[in-house]
């Protein structure tokens, strides 16, 4: 079973990278780009085949390691 996990900064948490990208895009002449936020993507395979159990395991993985839940949210997508 494959999964994609998206880790994004919580609303209201400063995102210096997003800000820098936004400024750079402006300087490169791309207009109309706003609210740039940068996050992380983690793709992985699981031996687990039961979607319910897989989701449980992934939730634990996110809480324990992948996401810093003080400032980040995560979102789990099972892709196959």
């Amino acid at each position, binding site marked *: 079973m494959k999964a994609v996990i998206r880790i994004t900064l919580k609303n209201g948490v400063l995102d*210096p*990278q997003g800000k*820098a*990208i936004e400024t750079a895009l402006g*300087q490169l002449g791309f207009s109309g780009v706003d609210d740039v936020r940068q996050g992380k993507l983690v793709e992985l395979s699981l031996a687990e085949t039961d979607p319910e159990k897989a989701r449980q395991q992934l939730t634990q993985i996110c809480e324990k390691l992948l996401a810093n839940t003080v400032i980040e949210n995560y979102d789990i997508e099972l892709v196959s």
Partner: protein
Amino acid sequence: MSVAVIVFPGSNCDRDVAVCLAAALGEPPIMAWHGDHNLPKVDAIILPGGFSYGDYLRGGAIASKSPIMGEVIEAANRGVPVLGICNGFQILTESGLLPGVLMRNSGLKFICRDVALEVGNTDNAFLNAYQRGQHITMPIAHNEGNYFADADTLQRLEDEDRIVLRYAGGNPNGAQLNIAGIRNKAGNVIGMMPHPERLAEAVLGGEDGRGVFDSLVQTLGRS
């Protein structure tokens, strides 16, 4: 004889390089601001280390798109010697002047320490004061110095004798072929992860880095 040091927002080794250049050249270099569209006519260009644009997105990525880089690329194509140190090396790969990329260190940690290096091709403006095969020490200080390129590119770098510095006492960051520095095909553009400007004075722990600045003086003096 005039040398430009390009200053990006977040460059932080610009002064250190300028100090070494001033000592070697006998006059201070031109400090050129990233936002400028016209670079004065200079005999050599140095892209210093630091965290241009905070190293956000990828080290060197945003800086490589800044206005002055158009001028640097043009100068490089005209054959003006260009040296990128650390973040400057990253900017050179991001801008396409040098092949490959500098990825996150394999140990996933910032590393600041002296490393042993072996000098490769010295037929260029920044390394001709050294001998091929010479072992020297210079400090590294980076998060992203893990040189990566596809197999063909690596083969080409080897075949064309374009590896100018290799790690010689253990590979600190996972770089392929122990690459610490490379040059372009023409030989006028050099990128290196180590910081020669930090070990160019005995009181700071060694003088092995001074050769880079002495090389430049010799070259410019000759031409």
